[in-house]
């Protein structure tokens, strides 16, 4: 199956892209189960790219290989032209289950990446405080994770990833453990955050609506073995009211189109 790039909009010519993360020939098997086969993928700088697909398509595996948390059986991942096999300062991860230290306050959790890097306490707390405010948690600095809702906990996870000032943010189904209302609010905030952070986001999700709502580029993966089936660049204007996107024609068409493509993989 060849990967095809589909654009919903007037432009159909693919201009050369400046990609910050390059994935070449990545394969990975768990025993007899082939999770990924021969993945080639470029992630454009400053864009939000979603990895979307049904469960078992290897999207989280691919994200963790890019993060350097899982070793690939074959292939390479290059960030800014340098091949990486382990976690590095230019990438930061946001975890599906938040992965917050229950014994640490919000501010210590957010500053933890910097703490591990040996940044002085006053300095790292200043930085942490800035990003806590950025994700909308100002005044919650001294709370413990168990005092926060699921949505707020993931905001802490996001602030922690932002604090280390990595160029690439890797988000592993960040909203799947967050309730629906909080998820929508969070998605809106993420759109706003993207425009003023100028970072590259790689976002794993199984929600078609979520992918179309927030992504510049959607990579559709098919399962068993995980391969790229389609790349879609939804042409949606995200300036202005984020509520409006849900009623945007392109938004609705793209969701439909992706669903038609994915349907056959769902029993």
């Amino acid at each position: 199956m060849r990967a095809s790039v589909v654009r919903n909009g007037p432009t159909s010519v693919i201009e050369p892209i400046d990609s910050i993360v390059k994935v070449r020939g990545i394969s990975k098997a768990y025993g007899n189960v082939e999770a990924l086969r021969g993945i080639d993928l470029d992630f454009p700088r400053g864009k939000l790219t979603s990895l979307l697909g049904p469960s078992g398509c290897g999207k989280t595996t691919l994200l963790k290989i890019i993060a350097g948390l899982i070793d690939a059986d074959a292939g390479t991942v290059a960030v800014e032209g340098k091949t990486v096999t382990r976690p590095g300062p230019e990438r930061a991860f946001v975890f599906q289950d938040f992965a917050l230290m229950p014994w640490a306050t919000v501010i210590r959790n957010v500053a933890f990446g910097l703490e591990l890097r040996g940044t002085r306490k006053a300095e790292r707390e200043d930085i942490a405080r800035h990003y806590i405010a950025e994700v909308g948690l100002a005044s919650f600095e001294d709370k413990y994770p168990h005092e926060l809702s699921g949505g707020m906990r993931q905001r802490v996870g996001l602030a922690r990833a932002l604090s280390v000032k990595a160029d690439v943010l890797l988000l592993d189904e960040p909203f799947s453990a967050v309730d629906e209302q909080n998820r929508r609010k969070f998605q809106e905030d993420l759109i706003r955050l993207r425009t003023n952070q100028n970072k590259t986001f790689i976002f794993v999700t199984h929600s078609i609506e979520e992918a179309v709502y927030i992504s510049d580029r959607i990579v559709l993966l098919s399962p068993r073995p995980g391969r790229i089936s389609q790349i879609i660049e939804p042409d949606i204007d995200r300036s202005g009211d984020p509520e409006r996107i849900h009623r945007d024609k392109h938004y609705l068409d793209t969701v439909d189109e992706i669903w038609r493509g994915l349907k056959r993989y769902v029993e």
Partner: protein
Amino acid sequence: MATIVRTESEAGGLAPFAGGHAARGWRDQPVMLRLLSVVLFAAIWEIAGRIPVSFAFPTFFDTMVAFFGLLADGSMAKAYLSTLQPLVLGVVLSAFLGVGLGTLCGLWRTGEWLLIPMFIVLQAAPVAAFIPMVTFIYGIGMTAKTLAVMILALPVIVLNTYKAVRNVNESLLVMCRSFLGTRWQTVAKIILPDASPVIFAGLRLGVAAGFVGVVLAELLITPTGIGDLITFHRSRADYAEMYATIGSIIALSTLTLVFLQWVEVRVFRPEKRGA
């Protein structure tokens, strides 16, 4: 709704508020509840002593009188001076050694294979049976008593620490790695804090076992300290004094455990404060 509240408070002044406060009352006050439980316990003891259940069972009141008598004549202080030395030494050594060995076994496969089976056997064995053997090798001095404390306290501390370190939250380990934590940082900042509740559970069991060890040693090895005080008063049929001594060591053991819990919450798990 708001209007009604205002009228009430204007009409009754502070009375409704004070009434509400009293209605919540002693049931929400843990300190009061605990005191009540102590008073109830003392009352039942007093009644049982007055029946009497046995001629060797003194009343609560007599026991308290005997306790202050032992405090006043200095025999209690002298006994504790000699008991506390092997106890404190043994417990402190067991705590550090146990947490150290347990952590090592949790992190390092070879250590696990070498040591864990031995501690499982030690924990399962009726260790008091070893005490005559300890006396045979180390005589009747301080070393033997400290060892008696340690063989009782160490296994449970090692095994709990080992299990806690082994079952540390996997996702926090991955998180630490992804944010470039070194091996040492992972141990110090993730593994030990995450394992601390189970480690401290082991420490509490270990300290309690250490108290058992020291009393056993003083009853079986050398009649000194608290063990001697118990034996001495039993032999003279001073049952009130005997019970006062036993009660005092139980109280000391309990206070030590409470202190340990305080240290745990204070130092390692601040989020549990007030919970």
